[in-house]
């Protein structure tokens, strides 16, 4: 079992107070332990954790580009194999790096079957460049490239289902989790690194700056997303959903109301049509994964 006590992502990094991804980084390393090599993509986490000449990482860490972490990891894993070494090779990348620009590299790495664990910290937009939409941005979220306006209610497409896409690549283990449940994150990362082959984990990591909420409420927000069914925690083994977190579901309203990125759905007046569409997304999730208690 991996070491779960030490802090491999040190304090002193430069994330916003209450940063979901920063919390996720610590949990991930608790799950994978000190025998890990981390490949990062360009984004918030890279910038806040490695301002030269400082680094928050106590494991070997490499960042090359925005879009190639999975390919870099493929090379590292192959090198380790040739050298007879056994470290866990992880990618820890943002949703933009994962859902959009990096998907070709990820698809290639998964198809080739490298023994790597690819972890996406999903803060649902490009935060580092100033809150632009990504393929992981939820329906109707207002971002700087999908702003709500007179003719727009924000991002006009639902979240891309990347876990399904990677499961379809034959990944032996795909899981979603949330910083709202730290032990679950640690357990899933541990399981992924123990599983031979390319595994994928997507961690829901609220971003106080990008979503517009008080940084003291990050975990609370993460929990609310699960309680309304807009985020589902599950494990998929060889393409089959096995474990799902069940909940007593609440309407989506409170979750939406608590963030600036959905404020246009309530002001100047409540937009029932759009809120109903978001509720429908949660309902479909509930049906698909059987999350209702």
């Amino acid at each position, binding site marked *: 079992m991996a070491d779960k006590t030490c802090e491999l992502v040190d304090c002193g990094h430069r994330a916003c107070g209450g940063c979901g991804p920063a919390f996720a980084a610590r949990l991930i390393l608790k799950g994978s332990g000190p025998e890990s*090599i981390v490949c990062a993509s360009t984004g918030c986490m890279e910038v806040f954790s490695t*301002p030269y000449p400082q680094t928050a990482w106590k494991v070997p*860490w490499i960042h*090359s580009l925005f879009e*190639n972490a999975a390919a870099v990891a*493929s090379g590292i894993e192959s090198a380790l194999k040739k050298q007879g070494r056994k470290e866990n090779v992880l990618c820890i990348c943002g949703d933009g790096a994962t859902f959009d620009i990096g998907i*070709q590299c990820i698809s290639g790495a998964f198809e080739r079957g490298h023994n790597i664990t690819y972890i996406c910290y999903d803060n649902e937009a490009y935060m580092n460049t100033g809150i632009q939409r990504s393929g992981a941005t939820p329906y109707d979220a207002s971002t700087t490239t999908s702003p709500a306006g007179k003719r727009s209610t924000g991002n006009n497409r639902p979240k891309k289902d990347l876990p399904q896409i990677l499961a379809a690549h034959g990944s032996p283990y795909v899981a979603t989790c949330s910083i709202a449940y730290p032990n679950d994150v640690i357990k899933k990362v541990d399981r992924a690194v123990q599983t031979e082959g390319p595994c994928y984990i997507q961690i829901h990591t609220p971003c106080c700056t990008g979503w517009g909420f008080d940084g003291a409420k990050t975990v609370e927000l993460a929990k609310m997303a699960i309680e309304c069914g807009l985020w589902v925690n599950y494990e998929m083994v060889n393409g089959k959903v096995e474990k799902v977190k069940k909940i007593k579901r609440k309407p989506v309203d409170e979750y939406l109301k608590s963030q600036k990125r959905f404020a246009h759905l309530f002001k100047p007046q409540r937009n029932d049509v759009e809120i109903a569409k978001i509720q429908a997304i949660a309902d479909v999730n509930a049906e698909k994964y059987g999350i209702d208690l």
Partner: protein
Amino acid sequence: MKGILEGSHAAAEAAKLCRPDVVSAYPITPQTHIVERLAEMVADGELDSEYICVESEFSALSACLGASAAGSRVYSATSSQGLLLMTEVCFNVAGMRQPIVMSIANRAVGAPLSIWNDQQDSIALRDCGWIQIYAEDAQEIHDFHYIAYKVAEDHDVLLPVFICFDGFILSHTYEPVDMPTQAEVDAFLPPYKPYNMLDAKNPISMGMYATPEYYMEFRYEIDQAMVRSLDVIRRVGKEFGQKFGRDYSNLVEAYKLEDAEVAIVALGSVSGTIKDAIDEMRADGKKVGLLRLIVFRPFPAEDVKKALSGIKKVGVFEKNLSIGARMKGAVGYEVKDAVNDSSVSVLSYVAGLGGRDITIADIKKMVGEIEAGRGDCFLGLREELI
């Protein structure tokens, strides 16, 4: 051991003898025969490397970067669009000081699509921080791989290397090649010892981000390493000569330059045609010589200046086009700067783009233009098509 080898296979056989731990490349004409040959070697157990079959050149070089960062010797090969797709990673590899060696079978870039030879691809990447060596024949293609690894991995250098050779003209031509034995190569090129690497026992962060306070010094260091590599290439080239009888301590090759009144400067395989043209012109009493640039990055300015000293008329044969520049090719500027003498005329001539044939008659015509002081133009344009 002498064999009759295709240029691509001269590259693949040399790459094999350098014992790369990891190979990753993606097929593109005219480089394809290299990846195919390496795949065969791995399939037959002749080459004990991890061969990563990637989905693109972008991933090929990214994987090489990862493997190199993890402490392995790596190899790749590409051409043209493939090299351009790698561009972002090329800058990154050099910036992260990974001693990766990559063969480039030079090819034109689109649009329009052309699979034939010119040197636009590697010349376009002249500022990305890779050493660029240009071979004239299959023997040089072969030998330069051994030299490249040794230079790249030298701790005074730690920069990646392109070994460039003209697509089809060299990559698909069979020539006799003298190949060293594995034991001889092992004695020349010891096992890879990384300067630093990703290792859980000794964690470091690589590829961090740098504020304006730090960035410039990193770039300065890369440039300094490139400058230092001039001497390292000479030294390693000489050592190669002592071991294998073919001396590569010169970064440029002079052909009948001593008493020349006109000099042609060129890179790569066209030098053969130019030498033949020079022989004919010499027989007619014309004092013409050739300066072949073997190394383009780092630019061997001192060597160029010395080799061209006393010559008043210089024409640079460019298989690349620097669109919008006054001199038409990128190499001319560097030669002019190296000569640094306003009494010397340095003109550039774009020729052979997209595989356009270059004949002895073309070279003779070029010399006429150099003598007349007309230059910075395209040679062999078909006026009726314009």
